[in-house]
């Protein structure tokens, strides 16, 4: 959806047009859910948070500043609801919920070394991500998963872009500490396989 079209839809939604807001929900719900699920690690909670975020966004639509991306604003609302939820539960890390994992193929590079190995590596990485603090986890998910800039992530977290970068670097350092002892040989194997396939 282009920015111009999106602004027209937002303008219609502001006037109370339900169909216009439906289009906005459909445009962003998958991305928002993916992010919230990775934060909460609970399917039903993630849906509740996303629903609350969209309702809040509709209610506050007139205070949305069009100089910023709508996704950034929406993710900011969802992040704050997530934080409240996490504080209530005090669940900063949890078991990975594979109850409704879909059947998509794993990454091509990892599948070369065996699906079991790929699953083990992925689980280790996500377990390490789950152990990060909420701001660090959010920075990692939005930077690598959503390709958002440090400036946009800073808006979501309410911190300067330079602090976002600091969070990313600290997250990297923590992940290196957690993973390096487990996967010293595996990463080299993955890297060599990826290089040989791309040659």
């Amino acid at each position, binding site marked *: 959806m282009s920015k111009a079209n999106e602004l027209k839809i937002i303008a219609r*939604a*502001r006037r*109370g047009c*339900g169909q216009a*807001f*439906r289009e906005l*929900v*459909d445009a962003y*719900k998958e991305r928002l*859910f*993916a992010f919230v*699920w*990775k934060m909460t690690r609970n*399917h039903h909670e*993630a*849906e509740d948070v*996303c*629903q609350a975020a*969209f*309702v809040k966004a*509709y*209610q*506050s*639509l*007139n*205070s949305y500043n069009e100089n910023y991306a709508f996704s950034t604003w929406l993710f900011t609302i969802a992040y704050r609801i997530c934080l409240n939820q996490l504080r209530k539960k005090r669940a900063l890390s949890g078991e990975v*919920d594979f*109850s*409704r*994992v*879909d059947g*998509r193929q*794993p*990454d091509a*590079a*990892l599948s070369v070394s065996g699906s079991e190995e790929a699953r083990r*590596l*992925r689980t280790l*990485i*996500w377990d390490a*991500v789950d152990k990060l603090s909420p701001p660090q986890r959010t920075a*990692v*998910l939005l930077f*690598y*998963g959503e*390709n958002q800039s440090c400036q946009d992530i800073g808006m979501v977290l309410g911190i300067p872009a330079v602090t976002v970068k600091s969070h990313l*670097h600290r997250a*990297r350092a923590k*992940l*290196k500490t957690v*993973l*390096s002892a487990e*996967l*010293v*040989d595996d*990463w*080299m194997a*993955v*890297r060599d396989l*990826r290089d040989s396939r791309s040659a």
Partner: protein
Amino acid sequence: MNCRDAEQFFDAYLDGELDGSLRLEFDAHRLRCRDCQRQLAMLESFEHIIAGDRRGPTLSDDFTDRVLGEIDRRGIRPARVLLSRRFVVPAAALLPAAAVLLLTFAWPVSHTSLPGSLAPPRDESGFVVLDPAELDTAMQDPIRLHDLILGEAERFWAARGNLASEASAIPSYVMNLLPHDVANTPIVSPLDALRGLFAPGVPPIQAPEPTSADEFSL
């Protein structure tokens, strides 16, 4: 470059911000150090997995209907914003200043109509006098505050007159420093123009008479 040095540049390398001679040194170390290669490979792979992993539960098919259903059920509408926050904050900051100006200039205070006990005290020069010990109390009282502002304004206006007469003396000091021939050239006459501007009642300055030892003193 050793491993400890190279590790400090991991973030810059992965962020694409390492260049120049440092990049050359870093690459030279990376190519021969197996341990650093492993660590970098791990960090790069982790980033690719985070970016590329779309596995996870799927959203319910009726999610959008549920969102709109909740909005209808609760009768939620986009809240109206009457004033932009950009205007509310400066307006709130200017409000006290506007109130002071209003009290100062619009308050119908006339000292001639006030009873003698409420008229502000004045010294022999006619300036409003306010005891410093009573300043805090005066700040809370609009009438006393009005008198205070009036007194300060009168004091400033009187000082202006003194300043003007003192400023007009400066050109004469400058004229005494300059030799006779320079003082009579048109270059110096702008000083006279300044005198006319600041102290129009003061007579023009006469250049000093040349002396036998008329040397440049500057």
